[in-house]
Every structure is written in structure tokens, then in C-alpha cells.
């Protein structure tokens, strides 16, 4: 099909919804004007484990404007978790107030509904609760005996690790730790819910609508068709808006109870306790290599935690199965149940943390081998995913590393740490290799064509979401491309669960899935129109002409795209390389990232402008992992002592510096027909290691515990062997 060059795929057009965003007119979940709406607020437990013995809501109920206080006493019965450990999936129910038990600090124990936000907020403070408190399990160290293997996929081994270590000329055994982190998208979780005659309709910032409606319908025992979620814009997700959290349940229950639409906006404090997090990970790495740099053994053992009643498990070690060629490989994962809220996906779950351990360890081993860390990685490159025993559909990691090295000026790096100085600054260069699975999932879309004189307008509908990822724009470009019409004639309607089903936004599958779904709908429309006129498939003809020949002013078609058999036979990944220059103050422990270069091979780049945004966003969040992001658990009470954005330091503008991004031209039709691969998580993968490696190169201090704060740098000693 003829492409409209200026606006089809591959062009850096401005975001099509951008006008609304810069004008403040894009409407997010809590912002729709809804008549008769009231406000709900959740109340959190102040113990980490125990039982509610009494809950006095009388004072709260007396207040002006208060309409209801919901607790376990008056809450309706919902579908609850099964008795045992439940796997925390995207469709898991979200019961609330079903019993007196408290499993973690900050668990919702009550909900106030009032005429105004101020009234609801205040009444929450007046609820008096007493508990029968039990000693919570909050320390990983004290509960190691409870560690368990979360399913068969948790362990993997190939060859003989011990033999591989014996064979090695140089070995490395180190442990890397990453703290609890929080996604903290700028938009608070929020919803406006209206329960009406057994049906529920809500504006809610959920990343995956089809799974969210399942979760809500099962929680309340109503048909899935009776749940509608509308979410035109989502103010960031980073994984925290994948699952249905209990504020949705509270607001739904409240609306049902009082018969009015209910708005709930989770507080920023509750964004720490009630909407997911990345768990603490302890990763033990064992690596061995021959003098020439070839790896003989690689082991990656992860210990982390989950909730007492819900299991969330992310595979930090997976990266060690596939990134490098090694004959002997062992990967294990263990979980310890604690009285801390259930972890959840945060941007590149598993990869972001796992790659920090692996890519730091690779840097350490290169140093021990006296090898350039890029050469060391290239030496161990593989075109086969040895963990899955499948070929990669495409892997351009070596190109990423070499092109990045040129762009960055890697040849100026000093091998010996602490030798590149400028005034009070110690300058260091760091590199890391990145990989992120590029999934592609079944996706449907519906396209409606409308002939308007000689022009065709197309309206594409799907239940996709745009969490800042650029969905609107790349879908419009896809439709423009496959229909051969200007992008301005494409209207994208997403964010409504009543539209055709997509896998939603998450896991880096959005772009590939959405665009192929949209493509398929367009292709079907054209094929049907051609068939009606007995036009052969290969004949080139304008879509306007097709409609005219069919004597139609409007026409609609649906399409569903899904992975091919070839896709299933391959390992499909995006690859990348990160380069960072860091300046560390030799005395104060403060440091600045001076510049970054990222090279990405992520298939067909649909729109380099929005793709660049995804990459720098990932790099910034990855920089946050290193700079200061860390949620700390109070050792005596089990609450998060890090409870606000003044305590949880995400990167600010001054923390970042210029970032150059190079996209590699990659044509991977095994990945999917359009050759699109995910890029939303590639950017965060391993960037933490590239910064930590740069800090080592600057200072000679090997920092294995994130974040790398000034206090840690001041206390750290030099690595053995550094002069």
C-alpha cells in the first residue's frame, strides 16, 4: 500500500494528542465532570500484623457531609482470596474489608465517603481502631528459613556449574542488592465509579482494561460485560497501574452503597503502601572465565520477598540465561513471605534489577581479567538463546556496543580507576549491555472508514491505553501507513473497555501488539473492499477510490493480529548498550551524570521522537535506581519510613544530562509482520550497572548495593587492586 511519507510509520511526528496535554485539556481519571459525585478516602492500618479488635466510626459519621464509613462490619461480601498463597496476576480479585486480619502496615481498614474531599480526608482521621497486635515478619534476614521456591520455572541449570568454576582462570563471587522501589507515576491512582442497576462504569487509570474488568467483575460477582472502564489518558503507570488495586473496590462498594458516583484519589502516601512496588532483591553471582575472556560458568541466585497471602515473583536471573554464551549456567529464585504489601511489576521487572547484578559482575570480571569490558562482552556474544534453546530472531548487541563506543568516545576511557581527574572531580566511564524480551500478543481493532468527498477519514478503535508511551501517535501512523491516508485523517479512540480487545500497556508488548492489530484491521478493510469489486490483492489502488467503486461512503472492518509459528520458535528480544560518564566529587560523595549514550536495536522504530522519549525515560528511571530511589522498612514497626516524595527521591531535572540515542536499523519480521519491538523497558535495563561501573572507573569503589548515595560512597573503601 502506498505510504504517505510525511506521516506514516517511521516519521518523528509530534504526538497527536499533544495539543490537549500542553493545553491542560487532556482529561485524566479523576477529572471528568460527573454530577452528584462524592469523595471517598481510604484509611490505613497502623500495624503490620494482627487483628482489628474494635473500630469506632461514630465520630467520623457525625461530621458534616459524611455519608458513609465502610469497614469489615458493614462491607458487602466479595470474592476473597483463596486460603493459601495466591498468585498475584493481572486478573486477581481485589477484595477489601472482608475480615479483621491485617497482613501489612498500611492495609486499608476503612473507607470514608463524604460530600467534599476535605470532609472525607478529615473524617478518616477520626476513626479509632484498636488491634490485637502480633509480631510481624518484616526482616529478610530473620526469616530466611521460610524461603521457598515459587514454582518450577524458578530454577534453571545447564551443564555443571562447579566444573565450570574449576575450569576458570579467573572467578568472581559477589552479592548485589537492590532496595524496595516504588513506581510513583505522577498521576495518583484515581477513579470515578458509578454503580447503576447492577452495572458499573468507571473512569479509572488502569493500564490493561480487559484484565481489569475481569478482576472487578470477579471481585463483585457480576458479569464482565457489566463492567466498563474508560481511561483516555493515564498519567504514567510504570507497572503500578497494571493490577486492580483495592481503592477501585472501595469506590465501587461505596457507590453501590450510597447510590451516587464516587471519586477516589489515592494519596501519595498510599502510593507507597497500596499500589504495588518493586521488591528488595539480593542477587548472588558466581562467574568464571578463561584468560582469553570466555565464560566458563555463570550462576545467578536471587532471594526476594512476597506478601503473606499473595505471591509475586519476578525472574531477576532470566537475563543470565540468555545474554551470554556460557557452557555452565545455574539460575535460582527464592521468595520469603513477609508482612509487607505484595510486590508488583515495576518497569522491566526482573531485567532492571537482574541486569544490574549481571552487568556489574561482568564489569568486575573484565577488570579482574584486565580486559576491556566491551571486548569481554563481545567475546561472549551468542546468537542462540541458550536458556530457551532457541535462536534469537535478531540480535545486534555487538553492533550496539561498537557503535555506542564510537559515539561515546570510549577510547578515551582510562583503564585504571581514579586516574581521570579534573579539579575536585573524578571522572569515570561505564558501559553495560541491555536486553529485554520483545513480546507480541493477540490484538484486535476495528476501523471505520468514511469517505468525505475525495478524502478518507478513518476511525480506529481498540481497548488500548496510552500511559505516555505514544500509543495514540503510533497507532495513527500505522493506520495512515496501511490505508495510505494522511495521519490527520485518522482518529484514534482507545481507553474504553468496550472497544476491541488488546493486551493493554505493559511488558513492552504495547507498540508491537497495538500496531499490528491496527494494521490487520486496515488490511482487512482493504481486502474486503477489493474482494467486493473482484480486484486482486496486489493491485495498488487508493482507499478512497475503493470506497467510490463500491459506492460506499462508510465501511468498517475488524482485524486480529497474533504471533506466528515462527515467532514461537525464536527468542525475540530488543537489545541495547548504555554508556555513561560520571563525575564524582572526591570528597563529598556527590556525583553527577554528565552524559549518556544509548544505542538501541528495537526493531522498526515507529516514531523516533516518541521512541527517544521512551529511552530517555527508561534511562532516567534507571538513573533513579542508582542516585537515590529506595523505600526503607522501619525495623521495629514494619511501615515504610520512606513515605513521601520528599523522602523517596526520584531524579530531578538537574540529576540528568544530555542523552544521545542511536537507533539501529533492524528488520526483524519474525518478531511480527511489522517488525516492531518493545522499547519502553529496554531503556531502564542495565543502565544502573553502566552508572555503577562508571563510578568504579572514576573512584575505584565498587558499589554493589543500590542506591549509591553520598553516605555510602564516603564510607566505601577502594577495591583491592586499585592503586
Amino acid at each position, binding site marked *: 500500500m502506498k505510504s504517505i511519507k510525511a506521516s506514516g510509520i517511521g516519521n518523528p511526528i509530534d504526538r497527536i494528542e499533544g495539543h490537549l496535554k500542553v493545553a491542560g485539556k487532556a482529561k485524566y481519571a479523576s477529572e471528568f465532570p460527573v454530577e452528584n459525585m462524592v469523595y471517598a478516602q481510604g484509611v490505613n492500618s497502623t500495624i503490620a500484623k494482627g487483628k482489628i479488635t474494635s473500630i469506632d466510626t461514630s465520630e467520623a459519621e457525625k461530621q458534616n457531609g459524611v455519608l458513609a464509613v465502610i469497614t469489615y462490619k458493614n462491607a458487602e461480601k466479595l470474592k476473597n482470596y483463596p486460603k493459601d498463597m495466591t498468585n498475584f496476576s493481572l486478573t486477581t480479585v481485589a477484595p477489601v474489608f472482608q475480615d479483621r486480619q491485617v497482613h501489612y502496615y498500611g492495609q486499608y481498614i476503612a473507607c470514608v465517603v463524604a460530600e467534599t474531599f476535605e470532609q472525607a480526608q478529615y473524617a478518616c482521621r477520626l476513626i479509632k481502631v484498636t488491634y490485637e497486635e502480633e509480631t510481624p515478619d518484616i526482616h529478610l534476614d530473620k526469616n530466611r528459613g521460610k524461603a521457598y521456591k515459587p514454582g518450577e520455572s524458578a530454577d534453571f541449570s545447564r551443564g555443571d556449574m562447579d566444573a565450570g568454576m574449576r575450569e576458570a582462570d579467573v572467578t568472581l563471587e559477589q552479592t548485589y542488592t537492590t532496595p524496595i522501589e516504588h513506581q510513583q507515576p505522577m498521576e495518583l491512582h484515581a477513579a470515578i465509579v458509578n454503580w447503576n442497576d447492577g452495572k458499573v462504569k468507571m473512569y479509572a487509570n488502569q493500564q490493561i482494561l480487559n484484565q481489569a474488568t475481569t478482576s472487578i467483575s470477579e471481585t463483585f460477582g457480576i458479569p464482565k460485560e457489566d463492567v466498563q472502564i474508560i481511561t483516555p489518558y493515564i498519567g504514567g503507570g510504570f507497572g503500578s497501574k497494571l493490577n486492580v488495586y483495592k481503592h477501585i473496590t472501595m469506590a465501587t462498594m461505596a457507590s453501590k452503597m450510597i447510590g451516587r458516583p464516587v471519586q477516589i484519589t489515592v494519596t501519595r502516601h498510599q502510593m507507597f503502601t497500596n499500589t504495588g512496588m518493586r521488591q528488595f532483591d539480593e542477587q548472588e553471582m558466581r562467574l568464571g572465565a578463561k584468560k582469553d575472556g570466555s565464560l566458563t560458568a555463570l550462576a545467578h541466585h536471587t532471594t526476594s520477598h512476597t506478601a503473606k497471602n499473595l505471591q509475586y515473583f519476578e525472574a531477576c536471573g532470566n537475563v543470565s540465561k540468555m545474554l551470554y554464551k556460557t557452557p555452565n549456567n545455574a539460575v535460582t529464585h527464592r521468595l520469603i513471605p513477609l508482612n509487607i504489601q505484595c510486590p508488583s511489576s515495576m518497569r522491566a521487572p526482573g531485567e532492571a534489577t537482574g541486569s544490574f547484578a549481571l552487568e556489574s559482575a561482568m564489569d568486575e570480571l573484565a577488570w579482574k581479567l584486565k580486559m576491556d569490558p566491551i571486548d569481554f562482552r563481545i567475546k561472549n556474544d551468542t546468537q542462540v538463546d541458550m536458556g530457551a534453546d532457541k535462536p534469537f530472531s535478531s540480535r545486534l548487541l555487538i553492533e550496539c556496543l561498537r557503535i555506542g563506543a564510537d559515539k561515546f568516545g570510549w577510547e578515551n576511557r582510562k583503564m585504571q580507576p581514579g586516574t581521570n581527574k579534573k579539579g*575536585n572531580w573524578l571522572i569515570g566511564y561505564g558501559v553495560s549491555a541491555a536486553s529485554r524480551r520483545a513480546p507480541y500478543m493477540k490484538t484486535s481493532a476495528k476501523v471505520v472508514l468514511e469517505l468525505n468527498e475525495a478524502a478518507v477519514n478513518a476511525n480506529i478503535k481498540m481497548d488500548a491505553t496510552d500511559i505516555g508511551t505514544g500509543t495514540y501517535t503510533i497507532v495513527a501512523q500505522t493506520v495512515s501507513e496501511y490505508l495510505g491516508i494522511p495521519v490527520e485523517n485518522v482518529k484514534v479512540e482507545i481507553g474504553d473497555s468496550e472497544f476491541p480487545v488488546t493486551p493493554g500497556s505493559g511488558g513492552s508488548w504495547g507498540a508491537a501488539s497495538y500496531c499490528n492489530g491496527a494494521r490487520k484491521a486496515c488490511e482487512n478493510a482493504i481486502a474486503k473492499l477489493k474482494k467486493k469489486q473482484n480486484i486482486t490483492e496486489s493491485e495498488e489502488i487508493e482507499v478512497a477510490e475503493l470506497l467510490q467503486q463500491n459506492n460506499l461512503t462508510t465501511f468498517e472492518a475488524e482485524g486480529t493480529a497474533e504471533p506466528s509459528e515462527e515467532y514461537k520458535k525464536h527468542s525475540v528480544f530488543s537489545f541495547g548498550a548504555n554508556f555513561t560518564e560520571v563525575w564524582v566529587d572526591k570528597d563529598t560523595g*556527590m556525583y553527577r551524570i554528565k552524559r549518556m549514550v544509548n544505542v538501541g536495536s528495537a526493531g522498526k522504530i515507529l516514531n523516533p521522537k516518541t521512541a527517544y522519549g521512551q529511552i530517555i525515560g527508561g534511562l532516567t528511571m534507571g538513573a533513579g535506581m542508582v542516585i537515590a530511589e529506595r523505600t526503607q522498612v522501619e525495623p521495629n514497626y514494619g511501615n515504610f519510613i520512606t513515605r513521601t516524595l*520528599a523522602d523517596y527521591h526520584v531524579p530531578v531535572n538537574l540529576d540528568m544530562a544530555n542523552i544521545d540515542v542511536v537507533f539501529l536499523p533492524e528488520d526483524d519480521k519474525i518478531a511480527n509482520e511489522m517488525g516492531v519491538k518493545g522499547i519502553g523497558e529496554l531503556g531502564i535495563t542495565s543502565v544502573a550497572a553502566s552508572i555503577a561501573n562508571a563510578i568504579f572507573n572514576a573512584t575505584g569503589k565498587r558499589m554493589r548495593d543500590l542506591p549509591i548515595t*553520598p553516605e555510602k560512597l564516603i564510607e566505601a573503601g577502594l577495591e583491592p587492586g586499585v592503586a
Partner: protein
Amino acid sequence: MRPFSYTNAKNKEQALQTFTKTSHYLGGGTNLVDLMKEDVERPDQLIEVANLEYKNITKNNEGGYTLGGMLSNSETANHPDIRKNYPLLSMAMLSAATAQIRNMATNAGNLLQRTRCPYFFETSMPCNKREPGSGCGAKDGMNALHAIFGYSDKCIATHPSDMCVALAAMNAKVEVQKTDGSSRTIDFTDFHRLPGNQPEKDNTLEPGELITVIHLDEPKFSDHYYYLKIRERSSYAFALVSVAAGLQIKRGVITKAGLAMGGVAHKPWKFTKVEKYLEGKKPNKVNFKAAAEMAMQDAKPFEGNKYKVEMGKKAIVRALTQAFEREA
């Protein structure tokens, strides 16, 4: 937030007369409104004083300047007379918070900032400052951000202000209006207090006293000044440790030194002894290092904040060096 009545005071008399013991004066609100949302502060009346007349910067009789209490931090820090005569103060004030917050925060309010101790902010935690008698959660809990000087068994919180660290290094006086219509002047070093047995009291103000102006001494550190702020991210964060250093140097010798540290005590920590030690000495690395050792020798850190001792020394040497090396 608890319900409260709101009064916009037209003049100081109205503010003072309206005050009751459960009232709170409202300046920029950057700290107070936050703490009210957290349910830490629970006034039943807010008296807005931000519109009172104390919004000027004027020359005073001591050869220095007087800052209006209701003037915003950004207007103060950017005032040409302040930048030229007290660049240390400008620098410290501009290291604080963000442009938005500095546009709101008043000078008087800055002095009254409350601690950022997380136990103080979280109402479900013990905190003697918020709720006398409930205990100090930080002492046996997480104390990385806490005091190493001058704390008590009851409280180990730190004072969060940057402006106040500079004021401590510079010598200043705080003028307050009492509810009976009289006024008094407090030496800046006596304005904030150590926690002792009454950590709920951050300063020596009596109930209802209203800060109207801050008097600055004649400028001494306009040529050699530096405010070093060490923090977890490069901006928009409270200090782990900060140092205000001012030097007056004549013919290669330090004739006057100002040195104070933030993030280490319940009040801005002024090193009076070290200032005296430096006076008459040459401004060099050896003397700066000796000063740093002397300054930190009485530090008594906790498990979580041992790093502050070494960080404090490094910060003092760096701040003094930067102050000295600054082109006059």
C-alpha cells in the same frame, strides 16, 4: 485537615489580638499546610500574616540590613543589596527547596520550619516532638538523617532550614512582637533551642509572638562565602549535611570567620570555637583541616548516621576552601 477558622490579618495588631493558644500564624504555608494535611499540626484558627507590612529590606543602624519577616525567600535572596552584601545568605536560601516554594515561603516562616524527621511526620509512630511522652522512634529506629550534636534522650531530630545555617554563620537578630504590643530582640543563636526535655519546642518564642523582622550585622563575608549542601540528589532535597562558610581575609590572614552546619542538630549548629580558632590564621588546607577536626570532635553519631562525621569534616574543608578561593 482539621477544621479551622481563617482570618486574614489586616495589620499586626489584629494578628496579635486574634491569636489564641490554638491559633497558628500562616505565612507562605509551605510547611504548615503540609503538616496540617499530615494531621501533625492541628490549629483551630489560622491567622494569615503574609500580607502584613514587613516586606522590605532596609539599611539598619548597625551598618547592616533588616529583612522583613513576610518577604518571600526568593525576593530576599535575589534582592541586589542582599546578593552584594550577603551572598552567603543568598546562596544558602537558593539551595533550599524549589523556585515555587521559595516564592511562597516567608523569611519568618523559614525560621519556624519544623523537622523532616519521618517519625515526626507519621502520626502512627512515636515522636516526642509531635506528641510529648510518646517516645522517640528514631533513636532505636532509622536515624540516618538525624542529629550528631546536641540531641537529648527525648529527641534526635534535626532542623531542616538552609537559610538558618547561613544566618547562624553570619550573626543575626530576630525581632518579635508580643501579644501585649511590646517587642523583643533575640540573638539568632538563641532563637532555636536544643531538644532537652521539651522537644516539642523548636525555638524560644512564647505563644503568640510574631516574627516581624530579621536584623543582619554589617556584612563581613561578601568576598569569601560558600554554602555547601550535600544531599541525595542534586536539587530539591534536604541536606544530609550542609556548611555555611564565610571568611573575611585581610592581607592573607583570616580576620573573621563564620562557620555553621545544617542537618546535624536540633538547631543550626554554629562552630563558635572553630570560628575563633580560624581568626588570625592563614587560609590554607592545614588550617582548614584542623578546623574540621576541631568542629567534629564532639560529634556523637548513632548507628545510622556515622557517615555524618566524616562527611562533615570533608564538607567543612571544602566549604572553607571554596570560600577562600572565590575571586573577591
